[in-house]
């Protein structure tokens, strides 16, 4: 402790940098804690459907069957790795229009408690 105090006195610029790094660590830790609380709160509900998601990821995250997702999106079940944004662009419709039947299927599944 004595050595540390002597170090601070002799090298104030090092002390200032260390204090700054310590504060940054504290701020990051606090943000991590808040993020962890948020994650715990939403853990039961998967993230909403987003343009970057693939049909397979929707299957995985929302527990729908591959057929249900394929029907909702109007695609073949065994499609390659394509995002919803890419599928919407291929079909010449907006992401919102593409996702609407999928969101309805997810909500129906949730309502059934499946």
């Amino acid at each position, binding site marked *: 402790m004595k050595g540390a105090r002597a170090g601070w006195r002799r090298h104030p610029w090092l002390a200032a940098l260390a204090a700054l790094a310590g504060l940054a660590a504290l701020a990051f830790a606090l943000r991590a804690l808040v993020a962890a609380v948020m994650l715990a709160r939403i853990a039961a509900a998967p993230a909403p459907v987003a343009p970057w998601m693939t049909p397979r990821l929707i299957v995985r995250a929302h527990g729908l069957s591959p057929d249900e997702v394929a029907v909702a999106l109007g695609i073949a079940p065994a499609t390659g790795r394509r*995002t919803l944004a890419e599928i919407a662009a291929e079909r010449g419709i907006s992401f919102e229009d593409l996702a609407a039947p999928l969101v309805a299927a997810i909500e129906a599944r949730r309502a059934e408690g499946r």
Partner: protein
Amino acid sequence: MSAEVFAFVAQWGLAALFVTTFLSCLALPVPSSLVMLAGGAFTASGDLVLGAAAGAALAGAVLGDQAGFALGRAGGAALLARLGRQPRRAALIARARDFVATRGGVAVFLSRWLLSPLGPWVNLGGGAAGLGWARFTAAGVAGEVLWVALYLGFGRVFAANLDAFAAVIGNLSGALAAGAVALGLAALARGRARGRARGRARGRRPGSGGGTAGRPGA
């Protein structure tokens, strides 16, 4: 921003994992954690094959580490030699070299996964300070295997809530790295104060030829 990163991984797959992990080891500001988490999520969904994703990420990371180490060795050694012309700096550099010689392997291993924001700087510093290539490589590969396993694993587990989990792990990683920097700076200040105190004590010793405190009758 995270949505664009996830879309980038969905579009480019294994190439995204390889290029991002490679560039992240050279201190370039690329979101490697987000890319790895997305890679993990896409292996869980079956969009990517787990073994191939792990291989691509590991290959990029190990090659990136080697490139950073080589850069440090090529440019850093000359820089340290120039800086070392000043006696005070030379002492500091000598201490840094001692640290690398005794604890360099541990620093490399921990900075791959636990303190990953420090990784690129440890690559450059290790190369510049003369850390042995075999030791660097062994510790680096072991750490990268752990990092790849952890991040792909987290991505698989939290595939349904990637964004929310990325916020937790990103901030936690920042807290650990900033904490390590704070402790390192504190240790440096303490070490320099001790070195000065030791130097004074030597000067006080009778017959040492230096200082005034040891003069008879003083």
